[in-house]
């Protein structure tokens, strides 16, 4: 783990009308680190990652990425810089196939008789490659995602994110909608991402998952950071106490 954080969130606040979704929250993320973000419903976890990924602009505070202060106007800008986000709802086009989803919004083109056309073959082979390195096999790349299982769809979302050389990968509740075997698979995926040097922020309700995969845990409650600890130096009881207060 290197000394310089890849991502620094400093004293960020975000309000929606009267709701203080985030108040003075600071978080660092290092390359190759898995940071778990814990907290009850409405604690501000999703808002925090949306501020990082360019969906929301912070009302106060600043965000630095790779050593420089940044303001992302939209998620696309953040992605271009290497911050990929997998949202709770995955944000996949279920009517399209794996290749189309991995390349959504960044489709490669080739020329046929001088006309620009979608390079389907490239999309398919590179999507297959992205999933192969994640050790996921899908044998029908021409079918829409609708026909796939929750784990496969999650894998496509992860494959899409890492295909673009993400330096920071943010995952909002990646295991929530999955069965137990698929949850295990996603945990394994996060571990392999960590080893390739990606910084991962991972939101979860599931303390077992959090302790299985994270290096550090940050707990939010009502928009404030109420606790932070190295995973080895804490335990479930402490995390739960932070989450519920008291």
């Amino acid at each position, binding site marked *: 783990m290197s000394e310089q954080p890849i991502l620094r969130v400093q004293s960020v606040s975000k309000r929606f009308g009267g709701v203080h979704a985030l108040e003075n929250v600071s978080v660092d993320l290092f390359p190759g680190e898995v940071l778990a973000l814990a907290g009850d419903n409405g604690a501000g976890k999703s808002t925090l990652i949306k501020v990082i990924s360019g969906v929301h602009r912070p009302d106060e505070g600043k965000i630095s990425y790779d050593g420089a202060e940044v303001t992302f106007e939209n998620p696309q800008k953040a992605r271009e810089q290497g911050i990929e986000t997998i949202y709770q709802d995955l944000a996949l086009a279920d009517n*399209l196939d794996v290749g189309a989803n991995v390349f959504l919004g960044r489709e490669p083109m080739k020329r046929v008789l001088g*006309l620009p056309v979608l390079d389907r073959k490239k999309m398919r082979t590179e999507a297959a490659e992205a999933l192969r390195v994640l050790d996921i096999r899908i044998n029908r790349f021409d079918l829409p995602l609708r026909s796939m299982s929750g784990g496969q769809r999650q894998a496509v979302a992860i494959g899409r994110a890492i295909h673009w050389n993400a330096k920071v990968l943010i995952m909002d509740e990646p295991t929530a909608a999955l069965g137990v075997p698929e949850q295990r698979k996603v945990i394994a995926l996060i571990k392999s991402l960590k080893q390739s040097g990606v910084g991962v922020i991972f939101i979860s309700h599931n303390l077992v998952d959090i302790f299985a995969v994270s290096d550090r845990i940050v707990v939010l409650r009502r928009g404030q950071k109420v606790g932070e600890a190295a995973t080895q130096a804490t335990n479930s009881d402490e995390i739960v106490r932070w989450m519920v207060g008291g």
Partner: protein
Amino acid sequence: MSEPPTANRKLQTADTKPPSAHPIDELVSERTTWATSVRSTVASMRAWIFLFFLLVGFEIWAQLAYHTTFLFNPFNASSIAVFTVGPLLLALGQTFVVISGGIDLSVGFTMGLAAVVFSKILNLSMGVLPDPLALVVALVVALLASAVPGLINGLLIAILRVPPFIGTLGMYGVARGIAYLMAGGTTIPISNPVVSFIGNQSLTLLSIGDFRVSIPILVLVTIVLTVAMVFMLSQSRFGRHVYAIGGNRQASLRAGINVTRNTIALYILSALSAGIGGILYTARFTAGAPQAGETLLLDSIAAVVIGGASLFGGSGTITGTVIGALIIAVIQYGLVFVNVEPFWQFVAVGVVIIISVLVDQTQKQLSGARTDE
């Protein structure tokens, strides 16, 4: 847009990787059985199968009732092709709109508006400009005029988030009123030899002795446009994004697709394809009429849904729409051929729309069929 980086990071799959029999693999093999393949094939063949039975049905009817052939009569084939032109032109743009999850109810009167503008401008400019130039001016102005309702639809739907059904229904009224006002409530005859040639002549493609293959120019123009639309929908980024927007608007936004601009472009495309319909209508009847596309709205939506596009958005093909339009034309022409009262056409097309949507809903629950070009 800059070329995206594509370098794949080689992940170390380390010790966390169980050697074989992955849970994910099991799930995969269970999902993609032969049953899925069969269902997906049937889904994409649905319209073809329907067309086949329709043709066979009319053939049997014609044989039994009139001892004549329906299918093996070149005149019938040519008539059906001409009947297909109107619904198909409106349906081409409508296909894009429906795939994006919208609907365009204004196309019929956008077509009428284009027909009226085209005739008016042609008549006005023929006195002052040489005929070919007058034609070009009329074409350009008519297309621009037809783009306007599309642009307004697009702005209403993409920026003000008016539901497509309501926005385009309003535009239906507006375009209709303006078309009638401009035409002074009547039809506008034209007399440009080039235009009436395009509207009523055929090109002979092949001629060996008595055997001739000729295609009405109207049909030829429609084929060229159809090929262009197939290309746009299946090969361009725009086409791909139309599917994505219809499949998951939120995901498209997050993927950086300019949903607003694409949506506006969609409705302009739909209006332009209706505009071309209006111009070809004028060519065929050598007169522009505000009600040129009045009955074609139903036909165009029917063609799109029979062709397999889902009114929920996210799926559909131009090829399917072409088959859908052929089905409409066969129903209409076939009923005339077997001497059924013409008003039954409306009933038949209406019933076919409803059945198609029902089949679509059922199939949606059953299959993971391919849904794009």
